[in-house]
Protein backbone atom coordinates (compact mmCIF):
# COMPACT_ATOMS: atom_id res chain seq x y z
CA UNK A 1 0.00 0.00 0.00
CA UNK A 2 2.81 2.37 0.94
CA UNK A 3 4.72 1.25 -2.11
CA UNK A 4 1.74 2.13 -4.28
CA UNK A 5 1.52 5.61 -2.81
CA UNK A 6 5.18 6.25 -3.44
CA UNK A 7 4.92 5.17 -7.02
CA UNK A 8 2.00 7.45 -7.58
CA UNK A 9 3.93 10.36 -6.14
CA UNK A 10 6.84 9.55 -8.40
CA UNK A 11 4.56 9.41 -11.42
CA UNK A 12 3.05 12.76 -10.49
CA UNK A 13 6.51 14.24 -10.15
CA UNK A 14 7.63 12.91 -13.54
CA UNK A 15 4.51 14.24 -15.25
CA UNK A 16 4.92 17.61 -13.57
CA UNK A 17 8.55 17.78 -14.55
CA UNK A 18 7.84 16.93 -18.19
CA UNK A 19 4.99 19.44 -18.23
CA UNK A 20 7.51 22.17 -17.43
CA UNK A 21 9.80 21.03 -20.25
CA UNK A 22 7.24 21.63 -23.00
CA UNK A 23 6.58 25.35 -22.39
CA UNK A 24 10.32 25.84 -21.89
CA UNK A 25 10.98 24.48 -25.33
CA UNK A 26 8.20 26.61 -26.78
CA UNK A 27 9.68 29.74 -25.19
CA UNK A 28 13.08 28.86 -26.65
CA UNK A 29 11.62 28.41 -30.13
CA UNK A 30 9.65 31.64 -29.88
CA UNK A 31 12.61 33.70 -28.64
CA UNK A 32 14.84 32.28 -31.34
CA UNK A 33 12.28 32.88 -34.07
CA UNK A 34 11.58 36.47 -33.15
CA UNK A 35 15.27 37.23 -32.62
CA UNK A 36 15.70 36.11 -36.19
CA UNK A 37 12.97 38.46 -37.32
CA UNK A 38 14.52 41.37 -35.45
CA UNK A 39 17.82 40.91 -37.27
CA UNK A 40 18.71 43.63 -39.74
CA UNK A 41 18.67 42.68 -43.43
CA UNK A 42 17.38 39.49 -44.97
CA UNK A 43 19.50 36.47 -45.74
CA UNK A 44 19.22 37.38 -49.43
CA UNK A 45 20.76 40.82 -49.20
CA UNK A 46 24.07 39.71 -50.60
CA UNK A 47 26.90 41.36 -52.46
CA UNK A 48 24.93 41.71 -55.68
CA UNK A 49 21.42 43.10 -55.50
CA UNK A 50 18.85 40.77 -56.93
CA UNK A 51 16.25 42.16 -59.33
CA UNK A 52 13.04 42.93 -57.37
CA UNK A 53 10.97 40.31 -59.21
CA UNK A 54 13.40 37.53 -58.37
CA UNK A 55 13.65 38.68 -54.78
CA UNK A 56 9.88 38.59 -54.60
CA UNK A 57 9.79 35.06 -55.96
CA UNK A 58 12.40 33.88 -53.51
CA UNK A 59 10.58 35.52 -50.64
CA UNK A 60 7.34 33.89 -51.74
CA UNK A 61 9.09 30.53 -51.89
CA UNK A 62 10.32 30.83 -48.31
CA UNK A 63 7.04 32.42 -47.13
CA UNK A 64 8.86 35.63 -46.23
CA UNK A 65 6.11 37.78 -47.79
CA UNK A 66 3.47 36.62 -45.33
CA UNK A 67 2.70 38.50 -42.12
CA UNK A 68 4.90 37.68 -39.17
CA UNK A 69 2.44 35.66 -37.13
CA UNK A 70 1.69 33.53 -40.15
CA UNK A 71 5.38 32.87 -40.70
CA UNK A 72 5.64 31.87 -37.06
CA UNK A 73 2.74 29.44 -37.38
CA UNK A 74 4.24 28.03 -40.58
CA UNK A 75 7.52 27.51 -38.79
CA UNK A 76 5.84 25.78 -35.85
CA UNK A 77 3.86 23.59 -38.23
CA UNK A 78 6.96 22.53 -40.14
CA UNK A 79 8.84 22.04 -36.93
CA UNK A 80 6.18 19.72 -35.54
CA UNK A 81 6.71 17.60 -38.65
CA UNK A 82 10.44 17.61 -37.97
CA UNK A 83 11.18 19.87 -40.92
CA UNK A 84 13.72 22.58 -40.14
CA UNK A 85 13.49 24.25 -43.52
CA UNK A 86 16.08 24.92 -46.19
CA UNK A 87 19.59 26.14 -45.50
CA UNK A 88 20.04 29.68 -46.77
CA UNK A 89 23.70 29.29 -47.61
CA UNK A 90 24.08 25.70 -48.79
CA UNK A 91 21.38 26.18 -51.40
CA UNK A 92 20.96 22.53 -52.39
CA UNK A 93 20.61 21.25 -48.84
CA UNK A 94 17.90 21.43 -46.25
CA UNK A 95 18.88 21.87 -42.62
CA UNK A 96 17.70 18.28 -42.11
CA UNK A 97 20.19 17.03 -44.72
CA UNK A 98 23.04 18.81 -42.98
CA UNK A 99 21.92 17.46 -39.62
CA UNK A 100 21.68 13.91 -40.89
CA UNK A 101 25.32 14.01 -41.96
CA UNK A 102 26.72 15.78 -38.95
CA UNK A 103 24.59 14.77 -35.97
CA UNK A 104 25.80 11.15 -35.70
CA UNK A 105 29.39 12.36 -35.50
CA UNK A 106 28.63 14.79 -32.69
CA UNK A 107 26.42 12.28 -30.93
CA UNK A 108 29.08 9.60 -30.97
CA UNK A 109 31.88 11.79 -29.73
CA UNK A 110 29.66 13.60 -27.23
CA UNK A 111 28.26 10.38 -25.77
CA UNK A 112 31.72 8.86 -25.38
CA UNK A 113 33.02 12.06 -23.81
CA UNK A 114 30.07 12.25 -21.44
CA UNK A 115 30.39 8.65 -20.29
CA UNK A 116 34.15 9.04 -19.81
CA UNK A 117 33.56 12.25 -17.87
CA UNK A 118 31.00 10.79 -15.51
CA UNK A 119 32.59 7.38 -14.92
CA UNK A 120 36.14 8.61 -14.51
CA UNK A 121 35.08 11.69 -12.56
CA UNK A 122 33.13 9.65 -10.02
CA UNK A 123 35.87 7.02 -9.74
CA UNK A 124 38.63 9.57 -9.26
CA UNK A 125 36.58 11.50 -6.70
CA UNK A 126 35.71 8.38 -4.72
CA UNK A 127 39.29 7.19 -4.87
CA UNK A 128 40.58 10.54 -3.61
CA UNK A 129 38.03 10.50 -0.79
CA UNK A 130 39.14 7.04 0.34
CA UNK A 131 42.80 8.02 0.33
CA UNK A 132 42.03 11.38 1.93
CA UNK A 133 45.03 13.60 2.73
CA UNK A 134 47.57 11.27 1.19
CA UNK A 135 49.90 12.28 -1.60
CA UNK A 136 47.57 10.62 -4.10
CA UNK A 137 44.65 12.71 -2.89
CA UNK A 138 46.58 15.97 -3.24
CA UNK A 139 47.88 14.96 -6.64
CA UNK A 140 44.42 14.11 -7.95
CA UNK A 141 42.95 17.31 -6.55
CA UNK A 142 45.72 19.49 -7.96
CA UNK A 143 45.07 17.87 -11.31
CA UNK A 144 41.38 18.60 -10.88
CA UNK A 145 42.12 22.26 -10.16
CA UNK A 146 44.25 22.44 -13.30
CA UNK A 147 41.40 20.87 -15.21
CA UNK A 148 39.05 23.58 -13.97
CA UNK A 149 41.13 26.52 -15.14
CA UNK A 150 42.23 24.98 -18.44
CA UNK A 151 39.33 25.58 -20.81
CA UNK A 152 38.72 23.25 -23.75
CA UNK A 153 40.13 25.74 -26.23
CA UNK A 154 43.46 25.76 -24.39
CA UNK A 155 43.55 22.02 -23.69
CA UNK A 156 42.72 21.02 -27.25
CA UNK A 157 45.71 22.78 -28.89
CA UNK A 158 47.99 21.66 -26.04
CA UNK A 159 46.96 18.03 -26.52
CA UNK A 160 47.66 18.33 -30.24
CA UNK A 161 51.00 19.96 -29.53
CA UNK A 162 52.12 17.22 -27.12
CA UNK A 163 50.59 14.03 -28.52
CA UNK A 164 50.49 14.77 -32.24
CA UNK A 165 53.34 17.12 -32.98
CA UNK A 166 55.94 16.31 -30.34
CA UNK A 167 55.28 12.64 -29.59
CA UNK A 168 53.47 11.83 -32.84
CA UNK A 169 51.34 9.19 -31.15
CA UNK A 170 47.91 10.27 -32.33
CA UNK A 171 46.52 12.08 -35.37
CA UNK A 172 46.11 15.83 -35.01
CA UNK A 173 42.65 15.92 -36.53
CA UNK A 174 40.16 14.38 -38.91
CA UNK A 175 37.45 11.83 -38.40
CA UNK A 176 38.01 8.82 -40.70
CA UNK A 177 34.64 7.33 -39.88
CA UNK A 178 35.27 7.50 -36.15
CA UNK A 179 38.25 5.17 -35.74
CA UNK A 180 39.33 5.13 -32.11
CA UNK A 181 42.70 6.82 -32.56
CA UNK A 182 40.96 9.80 -34.11
CA UNK A 183 38.61 10.03 -31.16
CA UNK A 184 41.07 9.92 -28.26
CA UNK A 185 42.25 13.53 -28.31
CA UNK A 186 38.85 15.14 -28.99
CA UNK A 187 37.23 13.09 -26.22
CA UNK A 188 40.04 13.99 -23.83
CA UNK A 189 39.74 17.68 -24.67
CA UNK A 190 35.99 17.61 -24.05
CA UNK A 191 36.10 15.48 -20.93
CA UNK A 192 38.99 16.82 -18.83
CA UNK A 193 37.38 20.01 -17.54
CA UNK A 194 34.10 18.47 -16.40
CA UNK A 195 35.78 15.31 -15.20
CA UNK A 196 37.80 17.49 -12.86
CA UNK A 197 34.71 19.26 -11.54
CA UNK A 198 32.85 16.00 -11.00
CA UNK A 199 35.86 14.53 -9.22
CA UNK A 200 35.95 17.49 -6.83
CA UNK A 201 32.23 17.32 -6.10
CA UNK A 202 32.29 13.54 -5.65
CA UNK A 203 35.29 13.72 -3.32
CA UNK A 204 33.56 16.25 -1.09
CA UNK A 205 30.28 14.41 -0.85
CA UNK A 206 31.94 11.02 -0.41
CA UNK A 207 33.98 12.34 2.52
CA UNK A 208 30.81 13.68 4.07
CA UNK A 209 28.98 10.37 3.62
CA UNK A 210 31.89 8.35 4.98
CA UNK A 211 31.79 10.40 8.17
CA UNK A 212 28.11 9.70 8.78
CA UNK A 213 26.77 7.42 11.50
CA UNK A 214 25.35 4.66 9.34
CA UNK A 215 28.71 4.09 7.68
CA UNK A 216 30.23 3.76 11.13
CA UNK A 217 27.55 1.22 11.96
CA UNK A 218 28.28 -0.70 8.78
CA UNK A 219 31.98 -0.77 9.64
CA UNK A 220 31.24 -1.77 13.21
CA UNK A 221 29.30 -4.80 12.11
CA UNK A 222 32.33 -5.86 10.15
CA UNK A 223 31.38 -5.32 6.53
CA UNK A 224 34.32 -5.18 4.13
CA UNK A 225 35.12 -1.74 2.65
CA UNK A 226 34.14 -2.77 -0.84
CA UNK A 227 30.62 -3.65 0.28
CA UNK A 228 30.31 -0.49 2.38
CA UNK A 229 31.26 1.70 -0.54
CA UNK A 230 29.22 -0.07 -3.20
CA UNK A 231 26.10 -0.78 -1.17
CA UNK A 232 25.89 2.03 1.37
CA UNK A 233 28.07 5.00 0.53
CA UNK A 234 27.99 5.37 -3.25
CA UNK A 235 24.30 6.00 -3.77
CA UNK A 236 23.80 8.88 -1.33
CA UNK A 237 27.14 10.38 -2.29
CA UNK A 238 26.05 10.61 -5.92
CA UNK A 239 23.32 13.21 -5.32
CA UNK A 240 25.48 16.35 -5.73
CA UNK A 241 27.09 14.88 -8.83
CA UNK A 242 23.70 14.16 -10.36
CA UNK A 243 22.55 17.73 -9.87
CA UNK A 244 25.76 18.77 -11.63
CA UNK A 245 25.11 16.51 -14.64
CA UNK A 246 22.86 19.08 -16.32
CA UNK A 247 25.49 21.84 -16.41
CA UNK A 248 28.14 19.28 -17.36
CA UNK A 249 26.04 18.14 -20.29
CA UNK A 250 25.56 21.71 -21.52
CA UNK A 251 29.27 22.35 -21.04
CA UNK A 252 30.30 19.29 -23.03
CA UNK A 253 27.95 20.18 -25.88
CA UNK A 254 29.30 23.73 -25.85
CA UNK A 255 32.88 22.49 -25.67
CA UNK A 256 32.20 20.23 -28.63
CA UNK A 257 31.97 23.33 -30.81
CA UNK A 258 35.55 24.23 -29.95
CA UNK A 259 36.79 20.67 -30.16
CA UNK A 260 35.19 20.06 -33.54
CA UNK A 261 36.76 23.26 -34.83
CA UNK A 262 40.24 22.41 -33.54
CA UNK A 263 40.21 18.80 -34.76
CA UNK A 264 38.26 19.43 -37.94
CA UNK A 265 35.48 16.97 -37.13
CA UNK A 266 32.43 17.01 -39.41
CA UNK A 267 29.88 17.45 -36.59
CA UNK A 268 27.19 19.98 -35.85
CA UNK A 269 29.64 22.23 -34.01
CA UNK A 270 31.34 23.14 -37.24
CA UNK A 271 28.04 23.88 -38.93
CA UNK A 272 27.22 26.08 -36.00
CA UNK A 273 30.35 28.18 -36.27
CA UNK A 274 30.28 28.34 -40.06
CA UNK A 275 26.58 29.09 -40.00
CA UNK A 276 27.22 31.97 -37.62
CA UNK A 277 30.07 33.31 -39.74
CA UNK A 278 28.04 32.97 -42.96
CA UNK A 279 24.90 34.28 -41.28
CA UNK A 280 22.98 31.18 -42.33
CA UNK A 281 19.86 32.00 -40.32
CA UNK A 282 17.85 28.84 -40.73
CA UNK A 283 20.77 26.52 -40.08
CA UNK A 284 21.77 28.21 -36.82
CA UNK A 285 18.15 28.51 -35.72
CA UNK A 286 17.54 24.83 -36.42
CA UNK A 287 20.67 23.79 -34.56
CA UNK A 288 19.82 26.02 -31.60
CA UNK A 289 16.41 24.41 -31.33
CA UNK A 290 17.78 20.88 -31.61
CA UNK A 291 20.41 21.49 -28.97
CA UNK A 292 17.91 23.35 -26.81
CA UNK A 293 15.45 20.47 -27.01
CA UNK A 294 18.19 17.99 -26.12
CA UNK A 295 19.29 20.08 -23.16
CA UNK A 296 15.78 20.55 -21.82
CA UNK A 297 15.03 16.86 -22.19
CA UNK A 298 18.29 15.94 -20.52
CA UNK A 299 17.63 18.27 -17.61
CA UNK A 300 14.22 16.67 -17.12
CA UNK A 301 15.79 13.20 -17.14
CA UNK A 302 18.41 14.29 -14.61
CA UNK A 303 15.72 15.66 -12.29
CA UNK A 304 13.78 12.41 -12.53
CA UNK A 305 16.94 10.42 -11.87
CA UNK A 306 17.53 12.57 -8.82
CA UNK A 307 14.03 11.79 -7.60
CA UNK A 308 14.59 8.07 -8.10
CA UNK A 309 17.70 8.15 -5.91
CA UNK A 310 16.22 10.55 -3.37
CA UNK A 311 12.42 10.02 -3.32
CA UNK A 312 11.81 12.72 -0.70
CA UNK A 313 12.15 15.27 -3.50
CA UNK A 314 8.71 14.25 -4.83
CA UNK A 315 7.00 15.55 -1.73
CA UNK A 316 8.27 19.10 -1.96
Amino acid at each position, binding site marked *: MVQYGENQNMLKFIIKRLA*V*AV*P*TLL*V*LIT*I*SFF*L*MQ*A*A*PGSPFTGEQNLPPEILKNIEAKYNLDKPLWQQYLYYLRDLSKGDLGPSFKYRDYTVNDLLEQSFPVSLKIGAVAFIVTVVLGISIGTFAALKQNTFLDYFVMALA*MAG*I*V*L*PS*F*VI*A*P*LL*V*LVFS*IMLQWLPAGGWNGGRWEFMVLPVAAMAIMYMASIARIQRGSMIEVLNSDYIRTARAKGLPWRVIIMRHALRPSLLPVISYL*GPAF*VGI*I*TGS*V*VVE*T*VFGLPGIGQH*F*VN*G*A*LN*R*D*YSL*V*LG*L*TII*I*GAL*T*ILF*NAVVDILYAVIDPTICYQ
Partner: protein
Amino acid sequence: MTVTPDADKKAAVQNFAQGLDIEGRSLWVDVRARFLRNRAAVTSLIMLAIIGVLVIVGPMLSPHEFDAINWGYMTGAPNWENSHWFGTDTLGRDLFVRTLMGGRISFMVGIMGALVAVLIGTLYGTTSGYVGGRLDSFMMRILEILQSFPFMFLVILMVTLFGRSIMLIFIAIGAVSWLDMARIVRGQTISLKGREFIEAARVSGTRPFAIIKRHIIPNVLGIVVVYASLLVPGMILFESFLSFLGLGVQEPMTSWGALVNEGAQSMEVAVWQLAFPAAFLVITLFCFNYVGDGLRDALDPKDR
Protein backbone atom coordinates in the same frame (compact mmCIF):
# COMPACT_ATOMS: atom_id res chain seq x y z
CA MET B 1 25.70 36.19 53.26
CA THR B 2 26.15 39.04 50.86
CA VAL B 3 29.22 39.49 48.84
CA THR B 4 30.34 43.06 48.92
CA PRO B 5 33.59 43.37 47.10
CA ASP B 6 35.75 46.01 48.66
CA ALA B 7 36.54 49.15 46.79
CA ASP B 8 40.08 48.45 45.71
CA LYS B 9 39.16 45.03 44.23
CA LYS B 10 36.43 46.73 42.22
CA ALA B 11 38.85 49.34 40.99
CA ALA B 12 41.35 46.66 40.06
CA VAL B 13 38.76 44.89 37.89
CA GLN B 14 37.85 48.12 36.19
CA ASN B 15 41.47 48.92 35.53
CA PHE B 16 42.01 45.48 34.10
CA ALA B 17 39.03 45.84 31.80
CA GLN B 18 40.28 49.19 30.55
CA GLY B 19 43.73 47.76 30.05
CA LEU B 20 42.26 45.06 27.80
CA ASP B 21 41.36 47.74 25.30
CA ILE B 22 38.41 45.86 23.88
CA GLU B 23 37.41 46.94 20.42
CA GLY B 24 34.26 46.05 18.62
CA ARG B 25 35.27 43.81 15.74
CA SER B 26 33.05 44.17 12.75
CA LEU B 27 32.39 41.33 10.37
CA TRP B 28 34.62 42.89 7.73
CA VAL B 29 37.62 43.21 10.04
CA ASP B 30 37.28 39.53 10.82
CA VAL B 31 36.93 38.69 7.17
CA ARG B 32 40.02 40.65 6.27
CA ALA B 33 42.07 38.95 8.96
CA ARG B 34 40.93 35.52 7.87
CA PHE B 35 41.53 36.31 4.21
CA LEU B 36 45.04 37.60 4.88
CA ARG B 37 45.88 34.38 6.68
CA ASN B 38 45.07 32.39 3.53
CA ARG B 39 48.39 32.40 1.72
CA ALA B 40 47.20 31.01 -1.60
CA ALA B 41 44.44 33.62 -1.82
CA VAL B 42 46.72 36.53 -0.94
CA THR B 43 49.34 35.40 -3.45
CA SER B 44 46.65 35.12 -6.08
CA LEU B 45 45.37 38.58 -5.26
CA ILE B 46 48.87 40.04 -5.62
CA MET B 47 49.32 38.20 -8.93
CA LEU B 48 46.03 39.59 -10.15
CA ALA B 49 47.04 43.09 -9.13
CA ILE B 50 50.30 42.70 -11.06
CA ILE B 51 48.50 41.42 -14.14
CA GLY B 52 45.95 44.20 -13.79
CA VAL B 53 48.61 46.92 -13.63
CA LEU B 54 50.52 45.31 -16.49
CA VAL B 55 47.41 45.22 -18.62
CA ILE B 56 46.73 48.90 -17.99
CA VAL B 57 50.22 50.41 -18.29
CA GLY B 58 52.06 47.64 -20.18
CA PRO B 59 51.07 48.66 -23.69
CA MET B 60 52.50 52.14 -23.03
CA LEU B 61 55.89 50.71 -22.04
CA SER B 62 56.45 49.05 -25.37
CA PRO B 63 57.53 51.13 -28.37
CA HIS B 64 55.15 49.10 -30.55
CA GLU B 65 51.48 49.65 -31.33
CA PHE B 66 49.05 46.74 -30.99
CA ASP B 67 48.03 46.97 -34.66
CA ALA B 68 51.35 48.08 -36.18
CA ILE B 69 52.91 45.56 -38.54
CA ASN B 70 56.65 44.97 -38.47
CA TRP B 71 57.21 43.77 -42.05
CA GLY B 72 60.75 42.69 -41.34
CA TYR B 73 59.92 40.51 -38.32
CA MET B 74 56.89 38.32 -38.98
CA THR B 75 56.41 35.29 -36.71
CA GLY B 76 59.49 36.51 -34.89
CA ALA B 77 60.70 34.82 -31.73
CA PRO B 78 60.85 36.76 -28.45
CA ASN B 79 63.72 39.19 -28.75
CA TRP B 80 65.12 41.83 -26.38
CA GLU B 81 67.01 43.81 -28.99
CA ASN B 82 64.05 44.98 -31.07
CA SER B 83 61.88 45.02 -27.91
CA HIS B 84 59.44 42.38 -29.21
CA TRP B 85 59.54 40.84 -25.76
CA PHE B 86 56.95 38.16 -26.51
CA GLY B 87 57.82 37.91 -30.21
CA THR B 88 55.45 38.77 -33.03
CA ASP B 89 52.43 37.08 -34.60
CA THR B 90 52.10 35.82 -38.17
CA LEU B 91 51.36 39.35 -39.37
CA GLY B 92 54.36 40.82 -37.57
CA ARG B 93 52.42 42.54 -34.80
CA ASP B 94 54.00 42.74 -31.37
CA LEU B 95 52.66 39.98 -29.17
CA PHE B 96 53.51 41.64 -25.85
CA VAL B 97 51.27 44.58 -26.59
CA ARG B 98 48.59 42.40 -28.15
CA THR B 99 48.49 40.04 -25.18
CA LEU B 100 48.05 42.96 -22.80
CA MET B 101 45.45 44.64 -25.02
CA GLY B 102 43.60 41.32 -25.06
CA GLY B 103 43.89 41.32 -21.30
CA ARG B 104 42.14 44.68 -21.16
CA ILE B 105 39.17 43.20 -23.01
CA SER B 106 39.15 40.12 -20.80
CA PHE B 107 39.28 42.10 -17.54
CA MET B 108 36.67 44.54 -18.79
CA VAL B 109 34.32 41.75 -19.80
CA GLY B 110 34.90 39.91 -16.54
CA ILE B 111 34.26 42.90 -14.33
CA MET B 112 31.33 44.20 -16.39
CA GLY B 113 29.74 40.76 -16.35
CA ALA B 114 30.13 40.51 -12.60
CA LEU B 115 28.67 44.00 -12.12
CA VAL B 116 25.64 43.23 -14.25
CA ALA B 117 25.18 39.99 -12.37
CA VAL B 118 25.38 41.77 -9.03
CA LEU B 119 22.91 44.46 -10.04
CA ILE B 120 20.23 42.37 -11.73
CA GLY B 121 20.75 39.26 -9.63
CA THR B 122 20.52 41.09 -6.31
CA LEU B 123 17.42 43.05 -7.27
CA TYR B 124 15.68 40.04 -8.76
CA GLY B 125 16.64 37.72 -5.94
CA THR B 126 15.72 40.04 -3.08
CA THR B 127 12.41 41.00 -4.65
CA SER B 128 11.46 37.43 -5.37
CA GLY B 129 12.53 36.20 -1.96
CA TYR B 130 11.11 39.08 0.07
CA VAL B 131 7.72 39.39 -1.59
CA GLY B 132 7.27 35.62 -1.75
CA GLY B 133 4.03 33.86 -2.60
CA ARG B 134 2.74 33.85 -6.16
CA LEU B 135 5.23 36.42 -7.43
CA ASP B 136 8.09 34.37 -6.04
CA SER B 137 7.02 31.14 -7.69
CA PHE B 138 6.36 32.98 -10.95
CA MET B 139 9.79 34.63 -10.91
CA MET B 140 11.45 31.35 -10.04
CA ARG B 141 9.64 29.60 -12.89
CA ILE B 142 11.04 32.20 -15.29
CA LEU B 143 14.50 31.62 -13.86
CA GLU B 144 14.13 27.87 -14.29
CA ILE B 145 13.09 28.29 -17.91
CA LEU B 146 16.01 30.61 -18.64
CA GLN B 147 18.43 28.36 -16.85
CA SER B 148 17.68 25.33 -18.94
CA PHE B 149 18.65 27.16 -22.12
CA PRO B 150 21.95 26.37 -23.72
CA PHE B 151 22.93 30.05 -23.59
CA MET B 152 26.12 29.83 -25.55
CA PHE B 153 24.09 28.74 -28.53
CA LEU B 154 21.56 31.52 -28.16
CA VAL B 155 24.48 33.93 -28.09
CA ILE B 156 25.91 32.40 -31.24
CA LEU B 157 22.46 32.75 -32.77
CA MET B 158 22.47 36.42 -31.80
CA VAL B 159 25.92 36.87 -33.31
CA THR B 160 24.64 35.25 -36.50
CA LEU B 161 21.73 37.64 -36.66
CA PHE B 162 23.17 40.95 -35.53
CA GLY B 163 26.77 40.61 -36.63
CA ARG B 164 29.82 40.59 -34.41
CA SER B 165 30.45 43.35 -31.92
CA ILE B 166 31.79 43.82 -28.43
CA MET B 167 28.50 45.39 -27.34
CA LEU B 168 26.68 42.19 -28.19
CA ILE B 169 29.11 40.25 -26.01
CA PHE B 170 28.36 42.55 -23.11
CA ILE B 171 24.62 42.14 -23.59
CA ALA B 172 24.95 38.39 -23.94
CA ILE B 173 27.12 38.11 -20.84
CA GLY B 174 24.74 40.32 -18.92
CA ALA B 175 21.89 38.05 -19.94
CA VAL B 176 23.52 34.85 -18.68
CA SER B 177 25.43 35.94 -15.66
CA TRP B 178 22.71 36.96 -13.22
CA LEU B 179 20.68 33.74 -13.12
CA ASP B 180 22.63 31.86 -10.45
CA MET B 181 23.21 35.06 -8.52
CA ALA B 182 19.47 35.69 -8.32
CA ARG B 183 18.84 32.18 -7.06
CA ILE B 184 21.49 32.41 -4.35
CA VAL B 185 20.34 35.85 -3.21
CA ARG B 186 16.75 34.66 -3.07
CA GLY B 187 17.68 31.80 -0.79
CA GLN B 188 19.54 34.14 1.55
CA THR B 189 16.68 36.64 1.53
CA ILE B 190 14.16 34.00 2.51
CA SER B 191 16.27 32.93 5.47
CA LEU B 192 16.72 36.58 6.52
CA LYS B 193 13.04 37.40 6.15
CA GLY B 194 12.00 35.57 9.31
CA ARG B 195 14.61 37.26 11.51
CA GLU B 196 13.55 39.61 14.29
CA PHE B 197 15.17 42.78 13.01
CA ILE B 198 13.29 42.51 9.72
CA GLU B 199 10.05 41.94 11.59
CA ALA B 200 10.81 44.94 13.78
CA ALA B 201 11.36 47.08 10.71
CA ARG B 202 8.11 45.86 9.23
CA VAL B 203 6.15 46.48 12.40
CA SER B 204 7.50 50.01 12.63
CA GLY B 205 6.02 50.67 9.22
CA THR B 206 9.04 50.61 6.95
CA ARG B 207 8.10 50.14 3.32
CA PRO B 208 9.10 46.84 1.67
CA PHE B 209 11.49 48.51 -0.76
CA ALA B 210 13.19 50.37 2.07
CA ILE B 211 13.54 47.14 4.03
CA ILE B 212 15.12 45.48 1.02
CA LYS B 213 17.47 48.41 0.54
CA ARG B 214 18.44 49.06 4.15
CA HIS B 215 18.30 45.63 5.74
CA ILE B 216 18.28 42.81 3.23
CA ILE B 217 20.85 43.94 0.69
CA PRO B 218 23.60 44.81 3.21
CA ASN B 219 23.15 41.38 4.75
CA VAL B 220 23.38 39.43 1.52
CA LEU B 221 26.36 41.48 0.35
CA GLY B 222 28.88 38.98 1.68
CA ILE B 223 27.65 36.09 -0.37
CA VAL B 224 27.17 38.40 -3.35
CA VAL B 225 30.83 39.45 -3.21
CA VAL B 226 32.01 35.86 -2.99
CA TYR B 227 29.86 34.76 -5.85
CA ALA B 228 30.80 37.76 -7.98
CA SER B 229 34.48 37.00 -7.55
CA LEU B 230 33.83 33.45 -8.70
CA LEU B 231 31.80 34.78 -11.64
CA VAL B 232 34.60 36.89 -13.08
CA PRO B 233 36.64 33.93 -14.37
CA GLY B 234 33.47 32.46 -15.83
CA MET B 235 32.80 35.64 -17.75
CA ILE B 236 36.39 35.81 -18.99
CA LEU B 237 36.06 32.23 -20.21
CA PHE B 238 32.79 33.03 -21.93
CA GLU B 239 34.32 35.90 -23.91
CA SER B 240 37.46 33.93 -24.72
CA PHE B 241 35.33 31.07 -25.96
CA LEU B 242 33.44 33.32 -28.38
CA SER B 243 36.62 35.04 -29.52
CA PHE B 244 38.33 31.71 -30.01
CA LEU B 245 35.61 30.75 -32.47
CA GLY B 246 36.01 34.09 -34.23
CA LEU B 247 32.63 35.27 -33.00
CA GLY B 248 33.86 37.71 -30.37
CA VAL B 249 36.05 40.78 -30.69
CA GLN B 250 37.05 41.78 -34.19
CA GLU B 251 40.41 42.52 -35.78
CA PRO B 252 42.59 44.43 -35.24
CA MET B 253 41.34 44.42 -31.64
CA THR B 254 42.03 41.18 -29.88
CA SER B 255 41.42 39.18 -26.74
CA TRP B 256 43.02 36.20 -25.07
CA GLY B 257 40.63 33.76 -26.71
CA ALA B 258 41.38 35.15 -30.16
CA LEU B 259 45.13 35.09 -29.48
CA VAL B 260 44.97 31.47 -28.29
CA ASN B 261 43.15 30.60 -31.49
CA GLU B 262 45.80 32.30 -33.67
CA GLY B 263 48.54 30.74 -31.59
CA ALA B 264 47.04 27.28 -31.95
CA GLN B 265 47.17 27.58 -35.71
CA SER B 266 50.87 28.35 -35.78
CA MET B 267 52.09 26.44 -32.74
CA GLU B 268 54.17 24.03 -34.80
CA VAL B 269 56.49 26.81 -35.90
CA ALA B 270 55.96 29.50 -33.28
CA VAL B 271 55.05 28.05 -29.92
CA TRP B 272 55.33 31.44 -28.17
CA GLN B 273 52.25 32.64 -30.04
CA LEU B 274 50.22 30.08 -28.10
CA ALA B 275 52.23 30.04 -24.89
CA PHE B 276 52.05 33.68 -23.79
CA PRO B 277 48.31 34.36 -24.22
CA ALA B 278 47.42 30.91 -22.88
CA ALA B 279 49.65 31.41 -19.85
CA PHE B 280 48.10 34.80 -19.09
CA LEU B 281 44.60 33.41 -19.46
CA VAL B 282 45.24 30.34 -17.33
CA ILE B 283 47.09 32.23 -14.57
CA THR B 284 44.31 34.83 -14.40
CA LEU B 285 41.59 32.17 -14.19
CA PHE B 286 43.59 30.30 -11.58
CA CYS B 287 44.08 33.39 -9.42
CA PHE B 288 40.45 34.48 -9.63
CA ASN B 289 39.36 31.01 -8.53
CA TYR B 290 41.70 31.09 -5.54
CA VAL B 291 40.66 34.59 -4.52
CA GLY B 292 37.02 33.56 -4.73
CA ASP B 293 37.64 30.44 -2.65
CA GLY B 294 39.60 32.48 -0.13
CA LEU B 295 36.81 35.03 0.17
CA ARG B 296 34.26 32.29 0.67
CA ASP B 297 36.30 30.67 3.42
CA ALA B 298 36.88 34.05 5.04
CA LEU B 299 33.23 35.03 5.01
CA ASP B 300 31.80 31.71 5.99
CA PRO B 301 34.35 29.83 8.07
CA LYS B 302 31.98 27.05 9.05
CA ASP B 303 31.28 26.11 5.44
CA ARG B 304 34.48 24.29 4.62
